[in-house]
């Protein structure tokens, strides 16, 4: 199955965006992003702390709905999902 990962702002600059990737059934949200982020150490450090936990300010979405960091490690991604990971917003 495939999912699309969208990073924004600083995370996009470090890791790219609109990354379509094949994932195994049962893959968890956090695991997916850890895997993708590992391709760039600055990108990884921007999103995760040294224990592989999301920094508390990172915002996660699955198909436009907010996922809490505490839930992401046990949240499965599904075929066709749009996963978004971004820093605090600063519009207006």
């Amino acid at each position, binding site marked *: 199955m495939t999912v699309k990962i*969208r990073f*924004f*702002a*600083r995370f*996009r600059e470090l890791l790219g965006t609109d990354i379509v990737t094949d994932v195994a059934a049962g893959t968890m949200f956090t695991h997916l992003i850890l895997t993708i982020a590992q391709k760039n150490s600055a990108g990884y450090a921007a999103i995760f702390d040294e224990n592989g936990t999301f920094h*508390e*300010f990172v*915002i996660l*979405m699955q198909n*436009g*709905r*907010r996922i809490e960091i505490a839930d992401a490690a046990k949240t499965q991604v599904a075929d066709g999902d749009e996963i*978004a990971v*971004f*820093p*605090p*917003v*600063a*519009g*207006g």
Partner: protein
Amino acid sequence: MIAIQTADVDIGALMTAAKKPGTGAVIVFDGVVRDDGITEMELEAYEEVAVKELEKIADDATRQFGLLHIDIIHRIGRFPVGETILIIVVSAGHRKEAYAGSRFIIEAIKAGVPIWKKELTKDGGRWVPGDHGHGTGHR
């Protein structure tokens, strides 16, 4: 009209359209790229989600302040100093509701709509820090 767009905004046309029956006050907020020693400002949005959040904010504001009309147009792209990046138009029967509704909308946008700004300088750029711990307002 709620939109995330690159194009500039015809404020006069929006204000005319905002004068629904019962209107006594229209407030326009025009957010502008400020000259903080930068060359340009670059704006990026998670568009589909941002539009939904803006629509939710407009609904909340209409309900809370009895607004008669709302436009929110947030621009994305790269803009020089002095350029408009956000227009909020609200109309209400009375000034109190119009001011309060306008202020509510801008604060809600800053707190919870997935839009980011990067200040570009001759030496590079810097992402404007967001409000930690808030994230998108509507979970």
